[in-house]
């Protein structure tokens, strides 16, 4: 795309047009082309919203919104169709909470260690390993959850189903850990030296300095990292599809099989539902809920950073 232009300029010169005017035209053409590239992202957003909204709208012409949000049975792919998204939302919440209970403190702890205690060498060794952890394909993590973590958990805790949110949540904790750590490290290290020195000057110990000065000062970044991690956990698909199972189950017992919203989308999207059938449309309705939740969380995390971050100049 960019290559064309010198050619155009060259040809124009040969024809003998006014160089300056031609240049201006060429520049304008290039500017427009580049703008078009940038507009692809806008088109993507519109397409995402449109593709979800269109089918969701069709879905809610046949299914009542009240049933969708209040019923506790979700069987859109069966003969006797029921459309209550509650079990899927509960499944997602269950896996996400388990992942957060383990992953958020671990991620923050690792961030504090890397930012405040670790020497240069440790930091240079550990950071790439965390990047590798973040880069492991989720299908590999799902395999690990199903075939390694689940047997171990079933050995330790009696009555755990083969598919369960426990092992999915445990492995997902390590998926979100690098997200929390990398963003939190950045915001911890951004806390200015003067604040630290003031803290020491007041007689604070290292522990007191970190918990009373550094972490509060970096809180906006830490909270933003938590929200992003939660959003990532909610949208994660392969680990839960493989390890948490596909049967929607309205229960608060994490030993039972529980389907999440994303697992259902995979299940419905890879099944042989006829396009346009109510079963196929339910996929878009679930996606609408998922998309809304993650979008709200993403905007929230940006707001947290903008509103509450303290500028030190």
């Amino acid at each position, binding site marked *: 795309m960019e290559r064309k232009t010198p050619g155009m300029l060259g040809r124009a010169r040969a024809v003998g047009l006014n160089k300056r005017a031609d240049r201006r035209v060429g520049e304008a053409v290039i500017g427009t082309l580049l703008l078009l590239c940038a507009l692809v992202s806008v088109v993507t957003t519109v397409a995402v919203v449109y593709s979800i909204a269109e089918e969701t709208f069709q879905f809610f012409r046949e299914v009542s919104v009240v049933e969708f949000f209040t019923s506790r049975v979700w069987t859109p792919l069966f003969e006797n169709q029921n459309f209550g998204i509650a079990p899927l939302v509960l499944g997602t919440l269950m896996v996400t909470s388990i992942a957060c209970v383990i992953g958020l403190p671990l991620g923050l702890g690792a961030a504090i260690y890397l930012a405040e205690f670790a020497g240069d060498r440790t930091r240079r060794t550990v950071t790439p390993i965390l990047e590798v952890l973040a880069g492991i*394909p989720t299908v590999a993590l799902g395999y690990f959850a199903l075939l390694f973590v689940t047997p171990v958990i079933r050995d330790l805790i009696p009555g755990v189903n083969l598919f369960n949110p426990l092992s999915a949540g445990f492995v997902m904790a390590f998926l979100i850990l690098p997200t929390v750590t990398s963003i939190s490290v950045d915001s911890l290290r951004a806390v200015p030296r003067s604040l630290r020195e003031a803290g020491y000057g007041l007689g604070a110990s290292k522990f007191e300095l970190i918990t009373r000065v550094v972490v509060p000062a970096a809180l906006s970044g830490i909270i933003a990292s938590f929200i992003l991690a939660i959003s990532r956990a909610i949208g994660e698909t392969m680990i839960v599809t493989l390890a948490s199972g596909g049967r929607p189950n309205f229960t608060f017992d994490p030993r039972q099989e529980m389907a999440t919203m994303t697992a259902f*989308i995979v299940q419905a999207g890879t099944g042989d539902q006829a396009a346009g059938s109510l079963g196929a449309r339910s996929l878009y309705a679930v996606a609408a809920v998922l998309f809304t939740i993650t979008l709200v969380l993403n905007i929230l995390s940006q707001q947290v950073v903008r509103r509450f971050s303290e500028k030190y100049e």
Partner: protein
Amino acid sequence: MKASLSAPAGAARRPGKRLVSAEEARRLAARTRAGRIFAVVTFIPVVLAVALVGVLLLDTLLDTVSWQIVEPSSSTSGESFPWSAAPLGGREVIRLDLAAQGETPEDVQAFMNDPEELRLFEARGRIELMWRTEDGPFRWVVTNSRDDSVADIGLFGVNAYLSELRGELAEDVEDLDPAEGGLLGRLQGADLDGLFNRFANIGLLSSTLGEDQNLYLNPWLDLSFLTKNASRTPVVAGLKVALLGTLWVMGLVILITLPTGVGAAIYLEEYAPENRFSRLLELNIRNLAGVPSIVYGILGLYVFVRLAQIGPTILSAALTLSLLVLPVVIIAAREAIRAVPSTLRQASYGLGATKWQTVSEVVLPNAVGGIVTGVILAIARAIGETAPLLLVGAVGFIAYPPNGPFSRYTVIPSQIYNWIAENDVEFAHVASAGIIVLLALLFVLYGVAFYLRRRFERSW
């Protein structure tokens, strides 16, 4: 940093003698100790994360090997070859086996060049690394694939196998001969329930073997794994179809995202006026980067597969993944462009260059390292994506490699997903072999990105 670290410790020590009461000194010591404990506590997550990566890699790698007990009389072709004769296994063992059967070198070569003959050979027989044979340890043997006396067992399945054997022996305890009776005694004395005594029990496993039994080690990951087509039989299933699918999809993704992503980045950094519209563009890109990947799958399913009627083809997959990684490419390219100092641009303008001449001759050449690194990292992310592609067609059994953008396809991660979903012990081994290949591919990409980042790193 270092200086401010030592300050409180010194402050605590100095007044310890006279100025501070014993009570207060104790409190000071406790406060210092709290800091040390805190350092250890925050170090634990780092250890856990590193350990998890290690355990995951080790477990997956160990899963690519399985063992089984086979009666040689019924299953081997009678010849075995030392491991060192064909360290990579696969084709080389076939060649050795054919030669051992008395084929001339020309016939062997003709056989090896005929894919149909090879396919039949691989469908009938399986190449196994024998752990213990009468000829010695670690030898290759070609066996018949229908001859298994025991199903494949993972390295961690030792306890399960032994307790099953114990149950069988205990059932007909009257008919046991003395040797089997002794074995039963040993088995009853062993602890077969714990998580961590599997390794100790491997020795016990060896002693359960009868005179005519051999212990096989099956490596599921060898070179032939990359060249075998897909199959419904685990032992002959290979990664070729998925590997070519991944290469096709990634090639197209690079073709689409490189110009678009860099173009958008140039626009945002160099051309975009400071107004609401530009801010909206930026906000939009940042939010797109946070959309779950499965949602892109729905977009691909609705827009490319159904509306545009491209169908579940390579092109649909490439377009879907391109939209998925575009925000990543844009963000990386913008950072690289922003790192080029504005003095260079001003110098270029000063020489009378137009905006585009400045961008193409000055800015881009100086930002190329960062851009390429960003694109490679984005591609690495796209290669590992499974969920969106499951919705746009990379699902189900694809027997033959793709031959163009409009052919049906599968990619490595979705092939792995399908193997895991088979819910079969042997397919789980195939899946682990696939995961190792995928991880190796990613590590190569990360390595290249890391190298380029170093190579092009410059300070202004």
